[in-house]
């Protein structure tokens, strides 16, 4: 399978009064074309910062890239000029956000907002862009699409607005869609509809997807592979079935245990004892060590590397799993 996106050693730091902090501290993962990669982790672990760093949308925040590569079809996005990057954004690489209520401009008509990328990237004239925009709205299941074109965002529900965002993101046939918690702000029933829609579109268009979420239910339903993040690092990577069947990293195990049974909805995954470490006071060794039930002396002093363990396409950043692998024993 050829790799659509390769993130290598990606680092993003935030300027703070007491010195810079590293919100994304050397991230490695890849997405194959046509594949859905899930990016999971507790609140504040750096998922959104990762997506914004890939899109180079940190402008206006105190954040900036501090190293690494983001190769999209082989070309390093971090080395492109701003002009070249604009040609990629919205065309080959599109993004939808967590906040459908505020992500659309309140004073511009829906039609105008969808037509913008279409005219820009596909070079359509006004009439053709409008036609294409209506088609996109129909595609994402918006009834009376040509009327909605003349509406303003506040006239639509949250679910409808997220559909509009999806229509907009998909309008120029991107090869990769980054979706940052696309359903978190929506009602449960609407959530399911939006996920179904995204799944359908992804299959119809054989598009790659980076799906950011902290809902493991969504991961199980949508993703092919999963990357688990903790404190700005990848701690585990695995195909989705293997991850749930046999999680390697104690953090992943904690995450899975904390999902309530009977598919109750969870807002935050908080049942792992302790808190995500403060960016300015990172533990020295393994960043998860202070909260880990299986902590060993070396965990406190040296950070383990992300190494292949436990089978095909699997990696984990944990002394324990790596040791038991060497001994040929089973994972924890």
């Amino acid at each position, binding site marked *: 399978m050829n790799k659509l996106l390769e993130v290598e050693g990606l680092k993003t730091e935030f300027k703070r009064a007491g010195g810079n902090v590293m919100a994304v501290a050397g991230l490695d993962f890849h997405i194959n074309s046509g594949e859905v990669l899930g990016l999971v982790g507790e609140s504040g672990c750096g998922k959104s910062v990762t997506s914004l760093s890939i899109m180079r949308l940190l402008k206006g925040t105190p954040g900036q890239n501090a190293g690494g590569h983001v190769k999209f079809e082989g070309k390093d996005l971090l080395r492109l000029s701003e002009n070249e990057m604009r*040609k*990629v954004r919205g065309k080959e690489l599109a993004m939808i*956000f967590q906040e459908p209520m505020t*992500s*659309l*401009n*309140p004073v511009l008509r829906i039609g105008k907002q969808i037509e*913008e*990328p279409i005219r820009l990237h596909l070079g359509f004239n006004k009439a053709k862009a409008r036609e294409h925009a209506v088609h996109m709205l129909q595609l994402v299941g918006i009834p009376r699409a040509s009327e909605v074109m003349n509406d303003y965002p*506040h006239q639509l529900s949250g679910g409808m607005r997220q559909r509009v965002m999806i229509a907009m993101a998909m309008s120029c046939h991107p090869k990769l869609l980054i979706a940052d918690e696309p359903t978190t702000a929506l009602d449960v029933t609407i959530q399911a509809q939006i996920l179904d829609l995204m799944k359908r579109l992804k299959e119809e268009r054989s598009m790659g997807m980076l799906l950011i979420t902290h809902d493991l239910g969504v991961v199980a339903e949508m993703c092919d592979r999963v990357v688990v993040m903790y404190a700005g690092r990848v701690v585990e990577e695995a195909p989705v079935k293997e991850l749930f069947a046999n999680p390697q990293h104690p953090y992943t195990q904690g995450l899975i245990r904390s999902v309530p049974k009977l598919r109750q909805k969870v807002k935050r995954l908080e049942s792992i004892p302790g808190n995500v470490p403060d960016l300015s006071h990172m533990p020295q060794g393994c960043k998860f060590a202070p909260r880990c039930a299986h902590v060993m002396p070396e965990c406190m002093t040296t950070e383990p590397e992300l190494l292949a363990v436990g089978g095909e396409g699997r990696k984990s950043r944990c002394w324990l799993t790596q040791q038991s692998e060497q001994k040929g024993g089973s994972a924890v």
Partner: protein
Amino acid sequence: MGRYALQRLLGVIPLLFVVSVVVFMFIHLIPGDPARLIAGKEATLEEINGIREQLGLNNPLWQQYIDYMGRLFHGDLGNSIRSGLPVSDMLATRVMPTIWLTLFSMGWAVIMGVFIGIISAINRNKWPDHVGMITAISGISIPGFWLGLVLIQIFSVELGWFPTGGVDSWSSYVLPSLTLGAGIMSMLARFSRTSMLESMREDYIRTGRAKGLHEFIVVGRHALRNSLIQVVTVAGLQFGFLLGGSVMVETVFSIPGMGRMLVDSIAFRDYTVIQALLLLFATEFILINLLVDLLYGVLNPKIRFDSK
């Protein structure tokens, strides 16, 4: 929008009514006998009684108000106590200079203020921002009459580019408009900067960038449209202060406008003229606010559609 506009228009009616009552009462609230005031100091009792009869001052107050309104609708603002001329005739030449002065001042203040605000916002904490904000702070802290005198000294007396006063040519309006607009320009520069910075932090700006839009479009189409809604409101409110400021500027630059007229009529206790000017200023203020409200509705789709 139609309903919103209608609501605003209807809302103006009670305001205008209150203003007309207050202005009508003005003559009656001055201590002393209005007829005696109008007749002047040397008038005989007979003359005073004549005037009282003529003005209907013996009628009940409500009857007098209705008569007053009737005369207003026929464009009759009474006669000047000082000159005996109809106030409406005296006003005829005085209205336009003030209107031009206010429009020019407002025009350059809004354009310049919003421009400086945008430039400062997108270059936040860099030198264009510092230059812009220093300009803005100077504009607010320099007293208007002093600025006017300095401008006259430099550009009229020393350089001879513009006349020192009067309204003989359009160039006469340059220095007065600069003087009158400076404060508002500064206010708007600071306000639009804040408002732009706020808009630039909104999620839809990030959406615009994620679409691959040029930063120019993100700022000019997405952020500015939202900021303008607030800027229009604030600019409209400032119009009221312009009316006040015009009194000072017309005095400094000897412009024969309504502001000067007000100063003169107060000096001579020309009550009928004062009354007419109060009415004009108050009505103008109300109408400008109406205009701002309507413009706000046009710019803000939430208002346009929620009040269908």
